[in-house]
């Protein structure tokens, strides 16, 4: 489906090109007809192409208010002089490609961005470098837009002084593909965005979330890499999110999660890798989520599931070398754990069907103690902690009895 739609867009764009056979090419540069990009835009008709020669352009805010194709040759630099928004797009079917945008203004009052799209359709922003911008690419009320292969870099010092890399608000059918975002507040931010695809992006070392979802239903994020963001990835108040084949890596800290799920329903987490996070997945008020075919390696806690999460299914995952597999905060468990591989499992398989004959309890006694009193972490792996865990295995008293995998795999799954 998604792929077909993507092809449809290509054809549509191609269509626009062929329709505009009579469209002119306007040249901008020191030795060209137009010295400033804005002059060329003002002179252009809808459907024209503006080619910008290399150089540095300082012309406050460039406003694109008609359908044009703005293309940079060898990445001309457009400088916002630490004061202005750099490009404003207020028309449909606009292309912005091949620029280097630097030093936008910052403001806590208005949202200044490198490129901002106002209520437009079919805009393509492709192959640009954005450096030291406040918001990077800001889409507001945009439909069917493509943000592709851009490279965004900011130097966020505090959450207040920085803003999001790719910020989308009240949009529909967006394609965010192959971008790299670093040093912003949130790498990619979605609020009220529906039916959109986030694919093959890399978001790392942002000062808050690598990816931030709020009220954004029926979106998919696939094959992205999220590394070393100071709070990981957060998906909140949303339903119908598909999270496939992403990598969540090195998100370290107390409030820091591979994925933080808050008030999420009917979503699907599949094929992801969680590597060295303090907490792989944190469930809070999450309902009807399927977690399958994921790999959890060397996390502090592979998953923390609050007791207010219900009807989630965790199956066919690999849990390898995590300090704790699962932690929870209550005795009520309304979630299903089934057919996972747990490397801490010590059971046997007499009937050789590949599943252990003894159920596995993924919550250890000591993880309950740590949940209650975090400082006890200092006693982790001590003789006493081991004794606690062993006695709890024989005589369960503190750990939730029905948080159990009845069919644990004997060998790791090939994922």
């Amino acid at each position, binding site marked *: 489906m998604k792929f077909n739609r993507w092809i449809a867009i290509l054809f549509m764009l191609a269509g626009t090109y062929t329709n505009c056979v009579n469209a002119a090419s306007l040249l901008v540069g020191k030795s060209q007809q137009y010295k400033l990009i804005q002059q060329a835009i003002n002179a252009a008709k809808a459907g024209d192409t503006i080619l910008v020669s290399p150089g540095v352009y300082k012309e406050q805010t460039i406003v694109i208010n008609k359908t044009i194709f703005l293309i940079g040759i060898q990445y001309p630099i457009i400088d916002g002089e630490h004061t202005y928004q750099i490009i404003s797009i207020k028309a449909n079917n606009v292309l912005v490609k091949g620029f280097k945008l630097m030093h936008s203004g910052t403001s806590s009052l208005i949202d200044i961005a490198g490129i901002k799209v106002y209520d437009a359709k079919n805009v393509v922003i492709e192959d640009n470098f954005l450096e030291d911008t406040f918001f990077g690419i800001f889409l507001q009320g945009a439909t069917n837009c493509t943000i592709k292969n851009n490279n965004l870099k900011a130097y966020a010092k505090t959450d207040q002084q920085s803003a999001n890399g790719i910020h989308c608000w009240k949009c529909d059918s967006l394609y965010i593909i192959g971008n790299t975002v670093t040093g912003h507040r949130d790498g990619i931010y979605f609020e009220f965005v529906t039916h959109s695809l986030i694919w093959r992006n890399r978001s790392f070392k942002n000062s808050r979330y690598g990816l931030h979802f709020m009220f954004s239903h029926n979106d998919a994020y696939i094959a992205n890499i999220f590394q070393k963001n100071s709070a990981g990835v957060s998906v909140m108040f949303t339903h119908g999110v598909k999270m496939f084949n992403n990598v969540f890596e090195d998100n370290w800290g*107390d409030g*820091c999660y591979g994925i933080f799920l808050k008030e999420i329903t009917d979503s699907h987490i599949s094929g992801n890798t969680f590597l060295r996070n303090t907490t792989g997945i944190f469930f809070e008020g999450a309902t009807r989520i399927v977690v399958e075919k994921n790999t959890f390696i060397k996390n*502090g806690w592979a998953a923390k599931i609050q007791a207010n999460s219900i009807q989630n299914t965790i199956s066919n995952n690999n849990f390898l070398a995590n300090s704790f597999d699962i932690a929870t905060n209550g005795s009520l468990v309304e979630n299903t754990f089934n057919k996972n591989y747990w490397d801490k499992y010590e059971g046997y398989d007499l009937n050789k069907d590949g599943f252990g004959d003894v159920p596995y309890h993924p919550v250890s006694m000591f993880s309950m103690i740590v949940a209650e009193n975090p400082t006890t972490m200092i*006693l982790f*792996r001590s*003789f*006493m902690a081991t004794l606690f865990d062993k006695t709890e295995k024989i005589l369960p008293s503190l750990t939730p009895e029905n948080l159990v995998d009845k069919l644990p795999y004997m060998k790791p799954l090939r994922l």
Partner: protein
Amino acid sequence: MIKIIKYVMADILRNKIIIAYTIFLLVIGMSVFNLEDNTTKGLLSLLNIVLIVVPLVCIIFSTIYVYNSAEFVELLVSQPLQRKHIWLSLFCGIALALVLAFFIGIGLPVLLYSFSATGIILVAVGLMLTVIFVAIAMLAAVKTRDKAKGIGIAVLLWLYFSLLFDGLILFILFQFSDYPLENFMLFLSTLNPVDIGRIFILLKMDVSALMGYTGAIFQNFFGTLPGMITATIVMLLWMVLPLYFSLRIFNRKDL
């Protein structure tokens, strides 16, 4: 002095118990890595050996050895030798022999199968704990004349360091859970060499889990160079101080 060390070492290395100990460690060290394809799990099993078995064997073996060589020590004292040299040679002999046993038994398999930062730290901690518990054993042995009582004290000390102390910490943590105890815990953990060793290894093995709020405090202390140096100095103090006190007692002791 070197002559006495040589003699003590030769005596110990011929000892069946120390050979059995080496073979036991070697069998465990090899089998743990051969049975598991996951070296982290192997290191985890060895962690329990290093923190529990090594101190137990070291403290009991050394205590018994010191008592058994009482006559040899008396003989040496009658010779024109300083008491200090006699006692230190005895210590060096036992410690070197046990260090050698540990290095062959655990060090070699770890270096062969899991040559990583975690593995190296595990071996280093094991070596330090070996020496520390020999020093503690010397103190226990010189303090009491009665052999049975001395061995009893050694066992109790081991129990204290590997179990009771942690129980005490857990008790304090839950009794005073309303107070910020992190820095106090940092101080308390230095009172037990087994705990310092364990935290050293945790910082490599479970660094993700330790990055939670409380853990981050330990990481900030032990994970930095000054913290590492401080912790290592504390470990060295745990070797030197018991030895020093035992030496003082031995110097004045009426044999």
